[in-house]
């Protein structure tokens, strides 16, 4: 029965892939319509190189620029990118989110900013990505394994935030961004100033955001079985603030470029007050509901600092690039002290940590990388190496993961062969070595231990000194064929991920989900094998893209809910333990756009994903956070209006199917229908164009659940109607 079912699935999937491909290939009529090319010069250059990259790379790459982000502006970067099929988010309230690419997230997806791998506390579900979306110019999303480029962790994909383009020579200018959102009464502003003489340049930015509790279309939330009334639909204590600084500066000439990047992202945001701790809690309603803008306990405060230098130079046939970087991620979680296990009921006065500091993580990361790109006949070869060292300290009165240090090094070679104008071959190999060293930790309080009928008080050991090493050899091969309007690609690759400290050694309560999480020191490095196909059809009035994939993990690391409870530190909560299982996944994304008229186009974006655990205690179940199938229908109208530049008007309807494939402790999620409206334009004012973008998200204030939201488990509906107005006012000084 089991086998029959999976064979049925496979055939079903295969058949449809073939049918859709065949159909698109058979379509071969010349087209009549020309979509207007309306982009600015600088974006156009990017557009072409993106196109070129897509045709030459065998992995699936999607690229978006800042005008896409502006038109689809969400509360955080990943929320703004959700329109792309295959890209979803795990959202934490209205101001934070983490990427979910084809159902994988956490440490299985990496984020790269200005060439530096972003290292935060991405293992935590409550961790949002510390990226300022105003500072993002171009994002490249690799849907699929990219370990051969980035090393460990990139098993599920990569979000690569490209460096800002350098200012043109002899310019001095900037811009002001203003954003307002109705749902959480958010005000955001970002101020940018850049300048360059012939060779020296700088580009700086300050971003400030301030938002209140967000509103949901319900007045009662059921946190597990506990009913929690909401005051005026406000999700209690989800307000937040953000303050970011950026500076890039350096020197550029024809064969030499050196850029320093500096950024500091600081956020403070509250957690939904009733769903944090050892059990769902009552809170002081009078205190909490007095203001929708204050941030009370529980809340988190995160600071992410990045400093790096990228230097590139040409030497004969060779293009060298070196990068040195430092990052510090400092995250603190504040909550009222609640004793559990044998913790004293009253917080001791002489403790090492303040009473409200529940957890603290302090991560320092030093990284160095170098690569050389050169050509030998029709081979374009890149060889390189990178070395990363990180040091993690912990603090606060509660324990979840131990302090640890980690070392990773990798060596790679990548070859792109241009056989002729139509055929490209890609091949890559990479070797990685990693070492993780976890520190021992003892409870700060004593627990009674019974031995030979004698009970003694002891400081229990929660984690032990443990050193693990991993090494891995990964590879990738692929081909591209571009006969005119059609382009086809195929890629087969392996990827790997080193287990992280949380998976190896956690031993504490997850206060967001009321569960006791236990690491497993015997985990192996996770491996993944993936076959990716891509098909793109492009005529002047019709584009079509279909990207199926199949993926196999012989040892996926999975947090398994057991039937046991922990009665000591876990305060009677359910025990979740890390295990490894075989996992098979497949899915596809489809994107198509058709121009009825020069100014009127329709688009469809659909995605489907199936995952199944093929062994282990949850054999037959899916993986957590599996996005249900969804289809987005969009209509886009871009008329010519004399005094406006590039006006647009678009309506989106997203149908998300129900998700019945669940795994404990998830709940089945019903289907949803959500409408979004967006319009905007640029207004000509002298040399610069002011752009105005308006969006109405969740137009009908629909109450629906998002299966992949951080708050889904507590039955929290998604944000209600949200009107977003954003404006960009560029300015320049002539010199």
């Amino acid at each position, binding site marked *: 029965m089991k086998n029959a079912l999976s064979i049925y699935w496979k055939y079903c999937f295969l058949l449809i892939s073939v049918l859709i491909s065949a159909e698109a290939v058979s379509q071969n009529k010349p087209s009549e319509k020309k979509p207007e090319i309306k982009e600015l010069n600088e974006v156009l250059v990017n557009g072409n190189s993106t196109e070129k990259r897509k045709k030459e790379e065998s992995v699936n790459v999607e690229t978006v620029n800042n005008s896409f982000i502006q038109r689809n502006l969400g509360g955080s970067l990943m929320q703004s990118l959700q329109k792309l099929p295959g890209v979803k988010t795990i959202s934490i309230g209205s101001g934070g989110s983490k990427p979910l690419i084809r159902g994988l997230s956490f440490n299985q997806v990496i984020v790269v900013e200005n060439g530096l791998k972003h290292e935060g506390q991405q293992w935590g579900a409550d961790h949002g990505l510390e990226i300022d979306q105003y500072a993002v110019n171009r994002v490249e999303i690799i849907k699929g394994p990219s370990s051969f480029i980035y090393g460990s962790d990139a098993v599920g994909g990569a979000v690569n935030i490209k460096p800002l383009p350098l200012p043109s020579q002899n310019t001095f200018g900037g811009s002001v961004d203003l954003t307002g959102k109705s749902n959480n009464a958010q005000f955001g502003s970002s101020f940018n100033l850049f300048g360059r003489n012939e060779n020296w340049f700088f580009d700086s930015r300050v971003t400030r955001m301030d938002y209140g509790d967000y509103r949901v279309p319900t007045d009662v939330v059921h946190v597990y079985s506990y009913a929690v009334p909401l005051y005026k639909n406000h999700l209690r204590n989800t307000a937040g603030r953000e303050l970011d600084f950026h500076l890039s500066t350096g020197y550029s000439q024809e064969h030499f470029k050196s850029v320093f990047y500096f950024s500091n992202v600081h956020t403070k945001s509250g957690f939904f007050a009733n769903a944090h701790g050892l059990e769902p809690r009552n809170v002081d309603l009078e205190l909490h509901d007095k203001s929708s803008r204050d941030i009370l306990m529980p809340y988190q405060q995160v600071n992410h600092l990045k400093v790096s230098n990228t230097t590139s130079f040409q030497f004969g046939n060779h293009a060298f690039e070196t990068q040195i970087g430092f990052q510090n991620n400092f995250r603190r979680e504040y909550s009222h002290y609640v004793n559990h296990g044998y913790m004293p009921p009253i917080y001791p006065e002489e403790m090492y940590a303040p009473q409200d500091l529940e957890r603290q993580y302090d991560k320092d990361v030093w990284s160095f990388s170098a690569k050389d790109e050169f050509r030998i006949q029709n081979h374009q070869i890149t060889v390189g190496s990178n070395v990363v060292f990180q040091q993690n300290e912990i603090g606060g009165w509660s324990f979840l993961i131990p302090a640890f240090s980690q070392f990773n090094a990798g060596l790679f070679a990548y070859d792109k062969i241009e056989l002729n104008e139509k055929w490209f071959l890609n091949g890559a190999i990479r070797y990685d070595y990693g070492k993780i060293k976890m520190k021992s930790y003892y409870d700060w309080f004593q627990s009674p231990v019974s031995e030979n009928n004698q009970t003694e008080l002891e400081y229990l050991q929660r984690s032990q000194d443990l050193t693990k090493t991993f090494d891995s050899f990964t590879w990738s091969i692929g081909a591209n064929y571009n006969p005119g309007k059609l382009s086809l690609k195929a890629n087969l690759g392996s990827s790997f991920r080193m287990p992280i400290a949380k998976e190896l050694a956690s031993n504490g309560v997850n206060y967001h989900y009321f569960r006791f999480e236990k690491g497993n020191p015997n985990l192996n490095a996770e491996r993944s094998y993936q076959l990716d196909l891509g098909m793109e059809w492009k005529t002047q009035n019709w584009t079509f893209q279909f990207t199926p994939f199949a993926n196999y993990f012989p040892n996926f690391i999975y947090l398994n809910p057991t039937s046991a409870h922990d009665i000591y530190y876990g305060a*009677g909560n359910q025990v979740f333990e890390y295990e490894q299982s075989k996992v098979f996944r497949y899915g596809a994304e489809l994107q198509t756009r058709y121009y009825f008229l020069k100014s009127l186009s329709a688009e469809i974006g659909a995605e489907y994903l199936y995952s199944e655990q093929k062994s282990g205690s949850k054999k037959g179940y899916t993986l957590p956070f599996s996005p249900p199938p969804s289809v987005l229908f969009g209509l886009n109208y871009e008329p010519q209006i004399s005094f406006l530049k590039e006006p647009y008007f678009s309506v989106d309807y997203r149908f998300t199917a129900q998700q019945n494939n669940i795994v404990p402790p998830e709940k089945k999620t019903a289907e949803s229908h959500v409408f979004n409206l967006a319009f905007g334009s640029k207004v000509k004012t002298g040399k610069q164009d002011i752009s105005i973008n308006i969006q109405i998200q969740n137009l009908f204030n629909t109450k629906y659940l998002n299966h992949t939201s951080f708050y889904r488990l507590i039955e929290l509906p998604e944000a209600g109607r949200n009107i977003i107005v954003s404006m960009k006012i560029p300015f320049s000084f002539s010199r």
Partner: protein
Amino acid sequence: MKNLKFLLGIFTIAFITSCSSDNAEIDTEYPVIDITQNAFPIQCSTIERGQTITFKAIFNDNVALGSYSLDIHHNFDHHTHSTEVASCEMEAVKKPVKPMLFINNYTIPNGVKSYEATAQISIPADVDPGDYHFMIRLTDKEGWQTLKGLSIKIL
């Protein structure tokens, strides 16, 4: 062109509907805590210090039960409320001196679908009287968990 679009639509729909059928073999049901008949404690029950009480409830699951844990902790700060609709009369907020804390887990025989749980809990004579919270956490074999939080009073 029209035909193509139409076909495409049909296939897309066929694809989504045919491939999203349920996987019938896995258990996706939560276990059930039944405290409607002959159960103790129930919402607003009172317990006397120095006595031994007998916890009673009926547990059900569609496949096999896992285990359960019981937890009694003070609610002097009114931090917890209950999963029940009826609310109980509460004493004023107060500071704990020697609150009772009881946490224990219990096994359920393997492969049982329905189980009448009983457990003896002795209430020490010297603990603080007042409002307490009685929590039942029940899992099934697959790891689905159901919670029940009851407000009780220790006299």
